[in-house]
């Protein structure tokens, strides 16, 4: 059932990683991504792997959750690996059949790419696993707030994001209900020909749209009643305060980043 889908994939907890300031977490994740892409050798990735492993262990989130996060992109990963394997033609030829050949460089590069993408996914999952979507939105709003000076609607975008997050569970529940109601009137949604299914989809989408508009309308009135007038002069209940641990985490990350760059230069 639709209800069983978890959105945002947030795992509430109280680990060191959970408690980090979300703004720092976003910045750290960005540095981590840059680190992975500047490191051009296996040694660099090994350093990245150590870093990721420490972070994963500190988060106290079961390792199998990270394996799960990599799973959906596995086909994509394999295709990239296979393409690299066959298309790279430099290096020692290890195996050859007609015009297809596998070279040592091919193996190196495809293994390297897979390694890098797995680290990338694990690291970014760590961000979403340990930070609730609403906190994330909030942090993004604050990180982007300098853009307000350029008339970029930072607050409005964040508000839209957080309202969307708020209503996702409501709309999923509603979709579930409408689907059941139409099924009870004999609409075939999981079976039947493509055409009947498409027609029956309309019987779900129209009520869903209508009710979403009604909700939006009522919500707008309710927000007005509570004096909403855009981002100007707003104060916030949620206070983001950076603690020494945030600085420490950033420092450690920069240290690893430095190590990756140094190793990269030394190996050249």
């Amino acid at each position, binding site marked *: 059932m639709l209800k069983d889908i978890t959105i945002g994939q947030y795992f509430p907890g109280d680990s060191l990683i959970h408690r980090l300031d979300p703004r720092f977490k976003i910045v750290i994740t960005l540095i981590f991504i840059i680190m992975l892409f500047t490191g051009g050798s296996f040694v660099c990735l090994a350093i990245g792997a150590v870093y990721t492993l420490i972070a994963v262990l500190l988060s106290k989130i079961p390792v199998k959750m990270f394996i799960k996060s990599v799973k959906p992109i596995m086909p994509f990963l394999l295709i990239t690996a296979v393409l690299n394997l066959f298309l790279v033609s430099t290096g020692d030829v290890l195996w050859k059949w007609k015009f297809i050949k596998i070279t040592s460089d091919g193996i190196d590069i495809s293994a390297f790419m897979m390694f890098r993408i797995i680290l990338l996914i694990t690291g970014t999952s760590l961000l979403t696993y340990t930070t609730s979507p609403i906190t994330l939105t909030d942090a993004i709003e604050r990180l982007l707030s300098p853009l307000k000076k350029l008339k970029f609607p930072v607050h409005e975008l964040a508000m839209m994001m957080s309202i969307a997050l708020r209503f996702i569970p409501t709309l999923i529940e509603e979709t579930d209900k409408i689907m059941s*109601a139409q*099924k009870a*009137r004999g609409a075939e949604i999981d079976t039947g020909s493509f055409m009947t299914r498409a027609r029956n989809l309309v019987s779900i989408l129209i*009520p869903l749209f209508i009710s979403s508009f009604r909700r939006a309308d009522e919500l707008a009135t309710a927000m007005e009643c509570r004096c909403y007038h855009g981002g100007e002069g707003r104060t916030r209940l949620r206070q983001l305060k950076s603690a020494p641990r945030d600085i420490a985490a950033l420092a450690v990350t920069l240290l690893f980043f430095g190590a990756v760059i140094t190793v990269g230069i030394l190996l050249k």
Partner: protein
Amino acid sequence: MAILETQELTYTYSIGSPFEKTAVDHVSLKIEEGQMIGVMGHTGSGKSTLIQHFNGLLRPTSGKILLDGKDIWEDKNNIRNVRFQVGLVFQYPEYQIFEETVYKDIAFGPKNMGLDDNEIKRRVLETANDIGLSEELMERSPFDLSGGQKRRVAIAGVMAMEPKVLILDEPTAGLDPAGRDKILEHIKKYHERTKNTILIVSHSMEDIASFADKILVMNKAKLFCYDDTVNVFARADEISKIGLDVPQITKVFGELKKRGLDFGKEVFTVGYAKDLLIRRLKEREVR
């Protein structure tokens, strides 16, 4: 013979997850043909889960549901047919309306049954009449109607499938007293014409008292009781203990009994209370 029967019906949500919960726990009951049954139970008692089993929207974790003596899950491909025979009207059914005319929306179910146009027309007009929608409304957009009318269009949409069993989940929720009375009255009218079995879920025991032959009460996933209306009201005390509302008038007569004024009868409608009191007062005058 019972038209609907459940045998040790059990349903557990999200098995194996931390949210695992048994919503219906070994419920066995038989629903006789042609009766009007009131279904009660507070939110989370399992009543909504139970009724979604009756038309095969949910499949039991264990146990069976028999329709006309036949296990509805015996042939999985037949389940759509079961949905035509056991019609289910959800809460706030007006939110499922989607066609551009009232006629088309009521006709959606019959059309899915594959009926021919003449039969569809007969059914749509007949149920529209039962539920009190006049013929000139048929070509109007359902979205221009009042809330109560929309609700009746949605109910007619299920009735038009002419199901042997019609189940309505809180058909009067959110309506004002006049709208509520009108809907109940029209459902009764439909019942009189078709003699079909009807189950109505309601929080209002006052409403249930006005139509039900039998009452089914769910509590904490289990069948609390399923008995004739009079017998269920005789247990008013127990029923208010599990958090359900007993009609005000029943409470008054319960209190009178405690104070030594016992009328020896279960009272659950104002009309009956009035007749009973006047009869007793007259008897006293004679003496």
